[in-house]
């Protein structure tokens, strides 16, 4: 249960990292609203920080690293991830007509 990084408890470090990065996210958006930084820069900051926070929670708090069974659990998680990637690529990113090209049976009356 006890793990250290640079001589510090890794859970405490992860917690501090998450708090600081969240503050940066909020600050970046506040700056963008007042047009101090561009929208593209905000997207870059949010995506980059989101990935780091995601990994911090999954790897440290959820023990997908540092434990004896971490590798097998991480590898098995790739099974649903494969479906997720398919879904995001083939529906989320590459079907431009999907929002307004649903068949009639898939729409509420009047749409």
């Amino acid at each position, binding site marked *: *249960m*006890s793990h250290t990084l640079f001589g510090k408890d890794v*859970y405490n470090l992860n*917690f501090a990292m*998450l*708090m600081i990065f*969240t503050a940066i*996210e*909020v*600050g970046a*958006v*506040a*700056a963008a*609203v*007042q047009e*101090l930084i561009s929208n593209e820069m*905000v*997207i870059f900051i*949010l*995506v980059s*920080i*989101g990935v780091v*926070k*995601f990994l911090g*929670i*999954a790897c440290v*708090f*959820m*023990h997908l690293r540092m434990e004896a*069974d971490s590798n*097998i*659990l991480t*590898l*098995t*998680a790739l*099974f*649903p*991830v494969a*479906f*997720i990637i398919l*879904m*995001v690529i083939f*529906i*989320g*990113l590459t*079907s*431009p*007509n*999907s*929002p*307004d090209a649903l068949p009639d049976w898939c729409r509420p009356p*009047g749409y």
Partner: protein
Amino acid sequence: MSYDAHDDHHDHPSAWGPHDWEKNGAPHNSWAPLIMSLGVGVFLFSFAATFVMNATRNGFDYDAGSLPMTIVGLAIVFAGLVVWWRQDYSFDGTYEPKATGVPFQNIDMRKVGMWIFLWSEMMIFSSLFTTYIRYRLGIESCTSILANDNITSAGIPFSPGEACWLPASYFIAGSHSESWTLTLGSIGLPDTLVPGAINTFALIVSSFTVVMALKTAHRTDLDHIERSRKVRNYLLATMALATLFLTLKIVEWFIGFNIGPFYAPSLMDDGFTIHNEAYALHGEGHTILEGINLRLSASTFFVTTGTHGVHVFGGIVGLAYMSWKAHNGGYGPSNAVSIEYFGLYWHFVDLVWVLVFPAFYLY
């Protein structure tokens, strides 16, 4: 007594609980999952039928006839929880069953079960995010149309009642906000973003308090009473933060707030609802885009954040039971993994919020 030494041909643990672990070993049977599945099914069918879109499609009517079955569904779920808790309450970690199938040999069966559950949850939230990405990229932005003198990218004048994309962040984190109480130099935080920002920090802190509960339950340098008290307090802190999260969510959706210098109308007051087909978007000067259909934008936001909120509520129910068990000295080094497995669920809820917050609240 090892788990293997248990002779389950002669002992028949109750599928209803309570369970005598010392006498009967690990239970191989429980009615709890079936009862809870039945209850959730009855609840969802009845709850969905409670809200009926009215004839003019500008709101909802309520069908009170579905209410009794909604309550019955909740009662069945609660009965399933009671069976589960009766079986779990006396668990002291003596008979932690291990998985035997490839590839999970010798991993705790409950841990494998929790991870499989979380993978199914990943699929649910991924479908919601895919929907968001598709709509966000596939529907033209309302602000772009407004900036183009109400002409769409296809060169056609925008017609009232048409859908265009107006993200929730426009109401929550945009210059639309009328009040900017928290400022640092030239950078300010819209008051409408305050509940979401507090919620983000609350969930991160709650993830940490679960970790602290687990670490404390593992400690052998504390006597049992002191350890139990600390574990209970960490779990209660987690529950308090989760309750704060849901309270602020309700404030943000339905109530709004006007406290001292802080002022933020609710999303409902702002007109960001799943039945608004005639929203008027005001731009700089006298520009205005009238008759915006907000149904898709609002539905995507409320369904995704609402699904996440339901998971937070589920966590609160679990934390209530675990706090009670901890209060009665139910957790120690031998069964601390129970907290770890709940922690996996709770960290997953935090993980989803890490994606929901920037995607729906900030951008």
